[in-house]
């Protein structure tokens, strides 16, 4: 069933502890999906590109003695290829043995850079952008938040996902959010099932788009990327998606300064929205939004086929 949530603070609010806010919402949605948890959080733009990547799946660490050496080799290769591409590493951190965060001084072709780095076996770039940081791992929100130090992440907006695996494996690759490769700062979370996934995946792959998993939800991210590569704005792309995507879905998209929501024409998947003066909060269940408020709030359910986009 999966749970999704989003927050965006309106203009004027420069920074909030968006990591802790999203963690409290996602933890309240744990019953909708205990398999994995993911965040797309938007922090401060300091002029550098933030790249989040994984060099192995968590489960690989349990089944191989050689994986530790392989991870070290892969990271060495990543560093070499970044240097070769002209990306200067300003900062490099790792929350786990397999999940890394790079801060890069880079102004070249992002697609070229990503393709070059992802060509290394086992390496997947989760996100790249000037403000977006995409974090996902197995376990509930409290586990992932503690693991990646998200309790004190200052930012303006975020989306998150708690996953109950139905369409694909329980691994980081299939966890949400998905980054809309190769467009920086765009991420997607989805609740539902898409029934025309393979048809559209084949079409989009023929157009040169890359899929990193077999999860149907990734189609939305790739679809948005395809639309944007045609010069279509986010809201129009989302409106078009209502007809393009078949199945039941409610999904959220974030860009550097926007948060969008789209619901299928059957309104089969839930979404509750709170629109306040300073912030917008939305989630699969109101109980998640109430983690941000200790008093009664006015909320509503968007209707079938509805698309909404909020601006920071």
């Amino acid at each position: 069933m999966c749970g999704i949530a989003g927050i965006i603070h309106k203009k004027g609010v420069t920074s909030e502890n968006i990591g802790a806010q999203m963690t409290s919402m996602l933890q309240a949605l744990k019953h909708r999906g205990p398999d994995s948890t993911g965040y797309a959080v938007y922090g401060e733009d300091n002029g550098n590109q933030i790249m989040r990547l994984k060099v192995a799946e968590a489960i690989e660490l349990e089944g191989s003695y050689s994986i530790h050496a392989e991870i070290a080799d892969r990271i060495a290769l990543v560093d070499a290829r970044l240097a070769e591409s002209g990306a200067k590493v300003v900062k490099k951190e790792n929350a786990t043995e397999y999940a890394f965060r790079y801060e890069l001084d880079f102004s070249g072709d992002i697609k070229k850079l990503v393709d070059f780095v992802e060509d290394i076996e086992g390496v997947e770039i989760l996100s790249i952008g000037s403000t977006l940081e995409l974090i996902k791992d197995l376990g509930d929100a409290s586990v992932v938040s503690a693991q990646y130090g998200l309790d004190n992440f200052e930012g303006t907006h975020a989306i998150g996902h708690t996953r109950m695996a139905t369409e694909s494996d329980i691994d980081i690759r299939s966890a949400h959010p998905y980054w809309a490769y190769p467009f920086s700062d765009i991420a997607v979370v989805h609740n539902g099932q898409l029934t025309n996934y393979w048809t559209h995946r084949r079409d989009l792959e023929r157009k040169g788009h890359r899929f990193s998993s077999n999860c149907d939800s990734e189609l939305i991210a790739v679809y948005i990327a395809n639309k944007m590569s045609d010069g279509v704005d986010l809201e129009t792309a989302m409106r078009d998606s209502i007809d393009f995507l078949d199945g039941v879905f409610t999904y959220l998209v974030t860009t550097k300064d926007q948060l969008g929501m789209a619901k299928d024409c059957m309104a089969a998947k839930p979404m509750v929205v709170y629109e306040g003066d300073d912030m917008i909060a939305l989630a699969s269940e109101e109980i998640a939004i109430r983690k941000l408020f200790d008093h009664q709030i006015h909320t509503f359910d968007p209707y079938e086929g509805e698309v909404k986009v909020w601006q920071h």
Partner: protein
Amino acid sequence: MATLKDTKSHDMGLHEESLKGRTQQRFFSVDESSNLTYFNSFEVDTDKTATIDALEMTPREINIEIRELMESGVGSITVDNPMSRHGVGVGILNRLNLTFNDSLGYFGCGLIDGPNVHIKGRVGWSCAENMMAGTVLIEMNAGSTFGAAIRGGDLVCRGSVGARTGIDQKGGTIIVGGNTGAFSGFMMQRGRMIVCGDAGRNLGDSMYDGVIYVGGEVEELGIDCVPGEMTELDVRYLTSKLDLYGIKTPNGVEKMNKYVSGKMLWNYDKLEPSEKKIAL
């Protein structure tokens, strides 16, 4: 507009339409009163009151607390801080005045038979599912599948509700002060639905029976749902029902539109006696 002469009155003074595949409604007969015995239903005194602070309680603990209070004869219970929790206020099978001073989550007040519930906030999906009798009044908005499969009582939302309102409705009355989403009245089998605002597409799709009144625009009627003729009785019924809850329609009840089943998919002429069963 048809007149009251076209209708019959029940010998208890209540209205009963003829069984022609349209709305059929029967009312409690005093002869059946001895059958109305439920396990876990309690004799309560509405003058005895209690308040529960649910801030740190689980849904299960809240429901148990309500039950224990009813068992001790308390007939008016107020629940503070339910904080949008799911499955609260369910399975209450006796008369009770129950007030929630906040919002509820999914499946609030399901499977109830008799209480008068007042929710001062919003409710999530499937509020009052399978409700059999009593009233549930919601002050704010409601989620989808509002009043799914209800069999009796009044379920009232002053605000707007989501999609599939009254899906599989088998009786009772659903009142929506605002708008309702797509597939409202889907597979409706009996009862009445009153929507003061607009209705989404596929209204009354595959409805077997029952009546839907809409005060605003209908985006699209579903298969087997057709406009019906508003009668003087309809106007009188709508006026009294909406006045009861202080709900207004934008253009007045006379301008509301009535929708019924277009063809007889199934004729429910074997009604359960007063919608109640003997609990063995």
